[in-house]
């Protein structure tokens, strides 16, 4: 029984090692000719300003939460759409309920002003 879980461990180790390999390889293989510009923090090609530890507006999080919910919704919708032919009316209703609750959450957030940028 315990052996069955061994692959989880192997997976875990592999997951750590795999991203490490290119980083380590780049460190050893890549030529290093630093200039101040190269050492600068990369921020979409713009010049970095101030400390990275800034306070974010709480609205960011509200947006992010709303986004994540609707992002997840898609994950559910795809398999549902693929199997729709087999599932029939019941699945339609089930998905309608699911979508309704999401829409309701959106309406709530909207009405409460969570989507307004202040």
């Amino acid at each position, binding site marked *: *029984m*315990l052996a069955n879980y061994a692959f989880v461990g192997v997976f875990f180790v592999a997951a750590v090692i795999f991203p490490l390999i290119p980083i380590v390889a780049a460190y050893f293989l890549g030529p290093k000719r630093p200039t101040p510009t190269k050492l600068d923090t990369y921020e979409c090609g713009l010049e970095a300003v101030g400390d990275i530890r800034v306070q974010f507006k709480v609205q960011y999080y509200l947006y992010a939460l709303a986004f994540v919910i609707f992002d997840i919704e898609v994950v559910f919708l795809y398999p549902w759409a693929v*199997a729709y032919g*087999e*599932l*029939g009316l*019941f*699945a339609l209703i089930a998905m309608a309920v699911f979508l*309704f*609750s999401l829409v*309701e959450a959106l*309406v*709530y957030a909207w*009405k*409460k002003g969570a989507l307004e940028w202040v």
Partner: protein
Amino acid sequence: MTEITIPPIDWRVATQLCIIFGWASVLLIIALFVPRSRIRVVGYLAIAGLVVAAGAGIPFWGGSAETFGGMLRLDTYSMMLNWLFLAAAAVVIAYSLNYLPKHGIEHGEYYVLVLFATAGMMLLAQGGDLIVLFLGLELLSLTLYVLTGFAYPRETSEESGMKYLLTGAFAGGFIVFGIALIYGATGSLNLAAIGDTLARAALAAEDRTYLYAGAALIVTGFGYKIAMAPFHMWAPDVYEGAPTPVAAFLSVGSKAAGFAALVRFLVEAMGSQWPVWAPALATLAIATLLLGNIGALIQNNVKRMLAYSSVGHAGYMLLGVLAAGAPGGMAGQRGVEAVLLYLLAYMLTNLGAFGVLIALEQRGELTWDINQFAGLWARRPLLASAMAICLLSLAGVPPTAGFWGKFYVFTAAWQAGFGWLTIIGILTAAIAAFYYVRIVVQMFTAEPSRETPAETDPALRAGLVIAIAGILVLGFMPAPAIDLVQRSVLATVGGQ
């Protein structure tokens, strides 16, 4: 491609749940469009929904059914508990109708959250599957975290909400881990299936280790919800900081739901392993009895005292849980009945006591020092009498509901062979009388130290009258309640 068949769904099982869920969703939208000054309408609508849901359960009384592949159950046990939850939620909302505006925290979401929490409790009572139990637990917990911190921006309320969240998340993590271990050991998440597996054949030694570790973690998680020692430390802080109606809801609803799930898990899934878990649970019961009652003994803050007392009461109910698992049919059923009767009595009593607290808190905050009850009899004789009845019921003095609760639990535990545990229970109950009586003394035989404003309103009075009448009726004529409780059987226990 194989045909996907959807098994027929027995909607009876989910009727009450659907009503509450649906109504909560609708109310959330309604609350958005109700003007701020009329927001108590949402409260009335919420009570209406609770009443409808309670009524909808009546036609199904007596049978037992399951659906969603055994994930959701409806037996008389869960129906009885559902009614308890619905009633508790209705009383709590009634208490809140005037409490919220007086404290400047009246928002429509409050009532909706109470409904969602109620739905979570019902899931805990009806769940036939570990995942459903976890779902119910999380639904209940998340809403309660918010409700606890509802008195924003009062710092005590915020802090207690945060403490509840932190410790609750801790407990939730253990439950998930426990569920995973049990699934690993038995290959199933369904309580009945797990019970069958365990009853039929002995597991491999390795699997047994996983099973027991998982069971221990799940007991921990539910133990947290019912405030069982040593997982009880959140209770006093959270009760103290939470808005008082929420504290009432925590102390009755949340605890009852935790017990509902604990009994189901221990009896249905782990019933055959009773000899293993009984000694551990007995030890925890003793710890709970002692820590709760001694904790209450040293309190001068009434809200904290009630919190510690609720820990102690969890200890008494644990005696019933112990008996519930006892082999030999009758003793087990006795235990389930004892837990249910105790819950009923405890719910009535605590709702009454917290109702009086709310009446005292009508104008701003109190420090809840015991002195604030001084001389209440002289100024508000009815309130003081109500509180006295509740305290006597908590102390288990006849003829009150609390006496029968204790009596039934002790009888069940004694018959299941926990004689020494019963004696500890009786002794701690004798100690417990002391701290309840301290408040009675303050109310009846102390000079009013200073003006403590007490106000009641029709809704609060209605809730109080229901609670007090319930305590006395149950005290003098417990037969109907006992009859109801005796018909409330766990489907698997009855079916065996």
